[in-house]
């Protein structure tokens, strides 16, 4: 069977899902599974079996609405599909009985419809504000195909990009990438075409391609979602890139904390082999490729390209001096291109749809779309994709729905620990490479952590430094010792030991570490301090001069107390206190012993639902 015939057959099979009998798509990526997707699936299966109702039940990936997991989609022939959210066991039972078996949709649980036609009382999902503002291109298949079925990917135009690339030579493919303007999505934003060209220019017999799936930035899970929901979109990009640079071996370095992504990658690779997209003489092109998966072992620094290469080579993950750059001397000493997961998916998309289509959104220097994980104190947490140039305000408020509990926005951390935080006064900053650098942050891999007024920015800086210091590989002195020093100073400030000299010291340290560190981890390690002192200096001064944590967060600055005018002596907090710090009797005012209190937040949380009598006050 040739490629065209294969695609036609798969299209037919996929379309049958919508035309012949009922189908139920269960969102089964990590978020969905952890929220209870399996229970929802088993409940539906059980109800359908009892009723003798036939339906195709398929595990799909993540549609990106993580805040509403578990999510399922009910598809009935010739009708628009309905997407349900927060599908608990009870809700799953009702959906099975009412909608699936008796064709009576349940708008009260629906998030939106999908496909042709309209269901009364339900807005199509992609016409709703939060989805309308997005441009889901990289994520086009996520939530709509079975990631363990290569046929579904083929039916959506999958691998047509590689077939196109087969008939082109390297310089032609590079021209396409240049025209598209695609920049590396791992964080640095280096022009992809240029990296590939440098590798080819090294003029060696053996080149390697490495796909960086380490995604170490805390708060970022875009790559995880893509690998779990549409692994072939990444694998096709790897095929195209490897073919262009003449690599016969490609490595995927994926973090071990992503077991489901690893599992789905392995299945996808096996299916590629079965269908002749991997191995020798792929699809008769004369091109050979072997893909090897390497699991990370828990080192954040191995997301840095030269440390990653060291790890693949079986060594401690310490970075190397550059030059020589990996495109000259990389893996095992050979010219190597290291590209991020989303860059690979972008490459496949460009070859499938064309450079012009890719670059019809974005800004002058930042073309195309970018996926982001929108997390933290925002209502609609999840995975989004927007054209570059969209503002932070639009993302946080229009797509994200604003702050949880209608609280007040304080800052958004972008670019992971190496990035920076952007405060309210700069919320109109467009998300593109240059604008973010101008604001003192960076694009990074795409994690957006939203913070509200309950977040202490000094503590955030301390947290990031703790992370960076722990992950420092130890090779170079400025980073190894400098990060420890910065952390110690920040720890002092957050534990009532800060002095005025500390701010000067931090500034001096920051400059030295930036200049002297060997790799990006060290060079960007002062960024949490630089951005928070730039925009939230008043918080530092409050800690140091006034002995106050304005956000009422840092433990040594606060204490918990019960308001005697509100407390009704219900004993709920008393019984739940893990260190028995609360005394009192039924119907009598309770008192917290501040010497015993560990400020775990249990009583605060419990009383919020009752009288809201527990207060956080200044320790002084």
């Amino acid at each position, binding site marked *: 069977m040739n490629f065209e015939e294969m695609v036609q057959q798969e299209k037919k099979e996929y379309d049958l899902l919508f035309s012949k009998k009922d189908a139920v798509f269960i969102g089964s990526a990590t978020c969905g599974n952890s*929220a209870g997707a399996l229970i929802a699936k088993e409940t539906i299966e059980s109800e359908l079996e009892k009723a003798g109702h036939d339906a195709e039940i398929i595990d799909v990936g993540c549609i990106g609405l993580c805040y509403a997991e578990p999510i399922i989609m009910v598809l009935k022939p010739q009708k628009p599909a309905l997407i349900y959210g927060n599908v608990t066991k009870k809700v799953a039972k009702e959906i099975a009985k009412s909608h699936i078996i008796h064709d009576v949709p349940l708008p009260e649980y629906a998030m939106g419809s999908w496909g042709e036609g309209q269901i009364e009382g339900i807005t199509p999902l992609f016409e709703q504000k939060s989805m309308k503002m997005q441009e889901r291109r990289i994520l086009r298949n996520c939530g709509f195909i079975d990631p363990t079925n290569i046929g579904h990917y083929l039916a959506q135009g999958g691998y047509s990009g590689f077939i196109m690339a087969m008939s082109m030579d390297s310089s032609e493919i590079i021209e396409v990438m240049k025209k598209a303007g695609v920049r590396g999505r791992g964080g640095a934003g280096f022009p992809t075409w240029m990296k590939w060209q440098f590798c080819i220019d090294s003029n060696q017999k053996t080149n390697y391609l490495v796909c960086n799936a380490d995604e170490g930035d*805390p708060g*970022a899970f875009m790559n995880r979602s893509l690998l779990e929901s549409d692994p072939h979109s990444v694998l096709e990009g790897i095929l195209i890139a490897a073919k262009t640079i003449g690599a016969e071996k490609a490595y995927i370095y994926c973090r071990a904390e992503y077991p489901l992504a690893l599992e789905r990658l392995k299945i996808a690779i096996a299916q590629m082999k079965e269908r002749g997209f991997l191995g020798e003489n792929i699809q008769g092109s004369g091109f050979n490729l072997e893909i090897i998966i390497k699991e990370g072992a828990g080192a954040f620094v191995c997301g840095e390209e030269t440390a990653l290469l060291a790890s693949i080579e079986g060594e401690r993950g310490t970075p190397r001096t550059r030059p020589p750059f990996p495109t000259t001397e990389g893996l095992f000493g050979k010219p190597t291109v290291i590209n991020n997961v989303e860059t690979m998916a972008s490459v496949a998309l460009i070859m499938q749809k064309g450079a012009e289509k890719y670059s019809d959104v974005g800004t002058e220097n930042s073309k195309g779309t970018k996926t982001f994980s929108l997390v933290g104190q925002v209502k609609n947490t999840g995975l989004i994709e927007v054209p570059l140039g969209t503002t932070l305000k639009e993302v946080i408020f229009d797509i994200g729905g604003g702050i949880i509990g209608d609280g007040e926005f304080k800052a958004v951390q972008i670019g992971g620990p190496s990035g920076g935080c952007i405060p309210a006064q700069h919320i109109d900053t467009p998300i593109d490479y240059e604008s973010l650098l101008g604001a003192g942050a960076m694009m990074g891999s795409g994690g957006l952590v939203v913070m509200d007024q309950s977040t202490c920015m000094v503590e955030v800086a301390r947290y990031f430094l703790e992370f960076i210091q722990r992950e420092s590989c130890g090779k170079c002195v400025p980073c190894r010792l400098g990060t420890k020093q910065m952390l110690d100073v920040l720890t002092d400030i957050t534990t009532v030991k800060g002095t005025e000299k500390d701010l000067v010291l931090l500034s001096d340290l920051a400059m030295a570490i930036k200049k002297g560190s060997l790799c990006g981890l060290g060079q960007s390690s002062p960024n949490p301090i630089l951005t928070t002192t730039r925009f939230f200096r008043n918080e530092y001064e409050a800690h140091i001069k006034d002995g106050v944590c304005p956000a009422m967060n840092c433990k040594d600055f606060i204490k918990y107390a019960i308001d005697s005018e509100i407390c009704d002596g219900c004993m709920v907090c008393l019984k739940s206190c893990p260190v028995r710090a609360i005394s009192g009797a039924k119907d009598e005012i309770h008192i917290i012993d501040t010497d015993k209190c560990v400020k775990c937040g249990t009583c605060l949380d419990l009383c919020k639902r009752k009288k809201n009598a527990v207060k956080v006050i200044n320790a002084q």
Partner: protein
Amino acid sequence: MQDLNKILSNYKGEKSDLIPLLQDIQSEYGYLSEELMEEVSKFTGAPESEIFGVATFYTQFRFNPKGKKHVAVCTGTACHVTGAQQIIEGMERHLDIKEGETTPDGEYSLESVGCLGCCALAPAAMVDDEIKSKLSIRSVKKLFRDYNPKKSANKI
């Protein structure tokens, strides 16, 4: 050693095999003991110091046995701002151990890990291979409902 030989037979002993080899061994035995490291050294021809140098660099590798149930709490940014520290402290209190330790009866071990990628449903933790999300102090209580460290301590 039979299981070990089975694992070793999948590899040629090249340097670039070292990390996957150690991962397979830890998967099978639960941790990397000194004896196992000696065998890896013999197999690869690399000195033990080099093997330990690589193994100790990566936080995934354990040198002490883990508990029957292993709990790894995520300390990523999203989890941090939604209360991961409180969760860890709550678990430490409940299990009566500190992070990085195993209960004396070998039932539970606790560690904090880098980002699990479940950020939209923070705070999250991995219990063996299962991810638990949207944790709270109360869900911590539920997680260890049937376990009482003092009772177990009396049995030892």
